[in-house]
């Protein structure tokens, strides 16, 4: 049983290479049911190392119940030049914001 346990995640290991390690973004779910939040990033050579480094760096004080790691290069980001065309048009359209609704009591995470 123990042997099975230690063989877990073997496929996530990369061979040691002389390449520089890559950057991974870390998302942590603090409680079951909540969305994963971006916490920061870590350097790692492979999936398993990224997961362990994220665990060691960001969850030492019981912050999480689940960790996602994603290679930073796989994240597509808008750029500052997009800001005007992406976000400004919504400023004068208050009806897009759900401010006219009453929040149901006890609904914390809406």
């Amino acid at each position: 049983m123990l042997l099975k346990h230690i063989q877990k995640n073997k496929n996530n290991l990369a061979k040691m290479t002389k390449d520089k390690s890559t950057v991974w973004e870390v998302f942590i779910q603090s409680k079951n049911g909540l969305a994963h939040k971006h916490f920061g990033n870590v350097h790692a050579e492979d999936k398993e190392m990224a997961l362990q480094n994220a665990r060691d760096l960001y969850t030492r004080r019981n912050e999480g119940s689940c960790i996602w790691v994603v290679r930073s290069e796989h994240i597509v980001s808008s750029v500052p030049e997009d800001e005007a065309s992406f976000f400004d048009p919504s400023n004068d359209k208050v009806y897009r914001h759900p401010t006219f609704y009453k929040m149901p009591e006890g609904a914390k995470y809406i």
Partner: protein
Amino acid sequence: MQDLLKYTLRIADTSLILGQRLSEWCSKGPTLEEDIALSNISLDLFGQANGLLEYASKIDGSRTSDDLAFKRNEREFYNLQICEQENGHFGDTIVRQFLCDTYFMIFYQELSKSEDETLAAIANKSIKEVSYHLRHSKNWLIRLGDGTDESKEKVQKSLEDIWKYTGEFFEMDDLDNLMSAQKIGVNNIKLKDEWNLIVNQVLSDAKIKRPEDSYMMTGSKKGLHTELLGKMLAEMQYLPRAYPNAKW
């Protein structure tokens, strides 16, 4: 009671001294992430040692856990000799840690069945931590062994250098026999098959060769150590001995 005290001290010292060794990596790790990982493991080991020393202090009745850590001399320490071996390069540390983690994992699984409730509880708590430590050291060993020619050569050498300290994991002396018979302690001989199973599997995944068993170091059960422990203790114990009532 003296028997239980000594038995508890053996387990406590093994965690304490390995923790102290690993803490030497703090601020010197190969990467920031690994620095924190090794320091975390070191802190887990100190936590285990602390629980065990608290228990030892209770059994002892006169010395505090700090007294036990900082006021005993080299010959009164019973940690396995493998724990006091130097960190060397990162591969050396990983190999030492992997061999110890595998041992801890199996040892604590057995100890968790102890009829001594405190030892069983500490063992149960430690298993979760050690299981993570093993995952960390095993993965690194596979990466390094199955890596570049240089990393492979280095960890193969690390393994050969430290192999002679692995015999102590499975030794039994009168005290072990007594504790095992009373269902308080662990029969170390029984640990060997499972330890071999895991070590052989991981070494084969890491594509490195298991050294032949030849001469094995021994002595820690009697408080005999390599020359490295004295220097470690000098550093570890300096402050509480120089300033006996120093507080945080």
